[in-house]
């Protein structure tokens, strides 16, 4: 049987290919701003929204998105309160999200609700609406990042200099959080809430090891993301493995390869 002619697999490839551009791209900015854990936090909160969506009968991804956006505002607020301990705000919000999700999932036991498909992803069940959401998110993220690439670079490199230069730093911080929330909500069905943050952070880790310029860094995160997602889906399909887990393990293999290449380069 040929996997590639099956519609569910084609959908998975399209959805995966789109997310493999936006998730690593946003992840790069997050990692550079030392907010690598924000992806994990937002995805856990988003899951609570997904559960609520099921309970009240609203498109779950949309409710998840709303939750993630709300959480990103709260994080920004807490980040200001605990200036030097930014990661504290992430830990608090993350546990809050998981707690809420677990209660909502328990309430929804009578319904036809499968928590596993959101914690671990269910890329083979993408429907037209999901693909449409993913495509829209990809378009929005690429447009906004493309237009604001200078500001995003400056903000990631030196927030103080950006502020002295008159950049509305808070506005951009919130913008990054909202874009991240968008990407995560769209990515949850693909790799699952537990593994989303790997798709955000591991490509960035590879690119930090390999790239010399910012341009290269952007190119490398997208290449690594695409390679891992497309190859991962194919391998998972052929050997009947969990797609999300396969993608993430491939990402980690790519990271090990990048680090090896870097050591080689350093020796030359």
């Amino acid at each position, binding site marked *: 049987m040929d996997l590639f002619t099956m519609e569910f697999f084609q959908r998975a490839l399209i959805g995966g290919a789109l997310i493999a551009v936006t998730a690593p791209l946003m992840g790069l900015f997050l990692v*550079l701003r030392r907010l690598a854990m924000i992806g994990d936090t937002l995805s856990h909160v988003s899951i609570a929204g997904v559960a609520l969506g099921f309970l009240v009968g609203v498109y779950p991804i949309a409710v998840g998105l709303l939750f993630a956006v709300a959480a990103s505002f709260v994080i920004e607020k807490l980040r200001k309160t605990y200036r030097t301990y930014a990661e504290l705000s992430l830990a608090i919000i993350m546990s809050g999200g998981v707690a809420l999700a677990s209660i909502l999932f328990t309430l929804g036991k009578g319904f036809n609700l499968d928590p596993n498909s959101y914690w671990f992803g269910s890329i083979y069940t993408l429907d037209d609406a999901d693909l449409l959401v993913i495509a829209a998110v990809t378009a929005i993220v690429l447009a906004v990042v493309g237009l604001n690439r*200078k500001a995003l670079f400056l903000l990631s490199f030196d927030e103080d200099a950006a502020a*002295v230069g008159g950049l509305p730093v808070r506005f951009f911080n919130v913008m990054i959080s909202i874009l991240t929330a968008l990407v995560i909500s769209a990515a949850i069905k693909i790799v699952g809430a537990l593994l989303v943050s790997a798709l955000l952070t591991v490509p960035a880790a590879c690119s930090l090891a390999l790239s010399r310029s910012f341009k290269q860094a952007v190119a490398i995160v997208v290449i690594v993301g695409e390679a891992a997602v497309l190859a991962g889906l194919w391998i998972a399909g052929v050997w009947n493995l969990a797609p999300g887990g396969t993608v993430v393990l491939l990402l980690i293999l790519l990271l090990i390869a990048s680090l090896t290449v870097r050591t080689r380069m350093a020796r030359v």
Partner: protein
Amino acid sequence: MTAVQTVPAITETQLNCHPEIIALDRVSFSFGNKPVLSDLSFRIRERDFVGLIGPNGAGKSTLLRLIVGLLKPDAGSIELFGKPADRFKDRHFIGYVPQRSNFNPLFPATVREVVLSGLYGRKKLFRGLSREDQARCDDALRAMHIEDLGDKRIGALSGGQQQRVFLARALISGPKLLILDEPMSGVDAETQANFFHLIRHLHQKHVITFLMVSHDMEMVRSYLGREPKETAGKLSFYVRHSHETEDCAETDLLHTIRKEG
């Protein structure tokens, strides 16, 4: 590169005619109930070189943040180029050299990308980089003698080279005020001396006003004199005005660096 022109010596009246770049009027600021600055008044005129000296915790960084509008004073007023600091719009007038320790050495960016980011003010945010921007970057690199390092990753440079990169970034927009926040920290004495030499040259040959925060007394005193012009709490302000310069008719700020259009 450019012809040196002679200019008549500056008289006392002309000196006083220099516009005020920074004016602090009875400024007070506190974090919570811990006062950091109280009732501070100070004026910085065009072409002054102000060394702001004080021990850690004396409020140096707070004062800088107030001046550039990152913080708001509890009382008093701060003016930049004659306008209230919080409503000051011509941000490209200010060049800012941060503490070197604030940046991550693993950051993936070339020297060129970092220097060009000095042009990413609010005005041209959405536009791409023009050929003129690239030329200005070449000039800034050349002026700092780091033209060979343009394609190197910023983290791969030595501390002294990084300082020059940050200075190039601050100078690329042709600033009228250069703010340096502890630029000498974390580099060896010889590198410090070279860097200070460069700064001194900029002060003497260009229409740039300097505000430098430092806890290194020696370097500052050797240029700005033994006695502070003013003290406030634990902060001391050392000032030297530069106008005995020979080529001050030169209007281009960095000889060759093009002015912000």
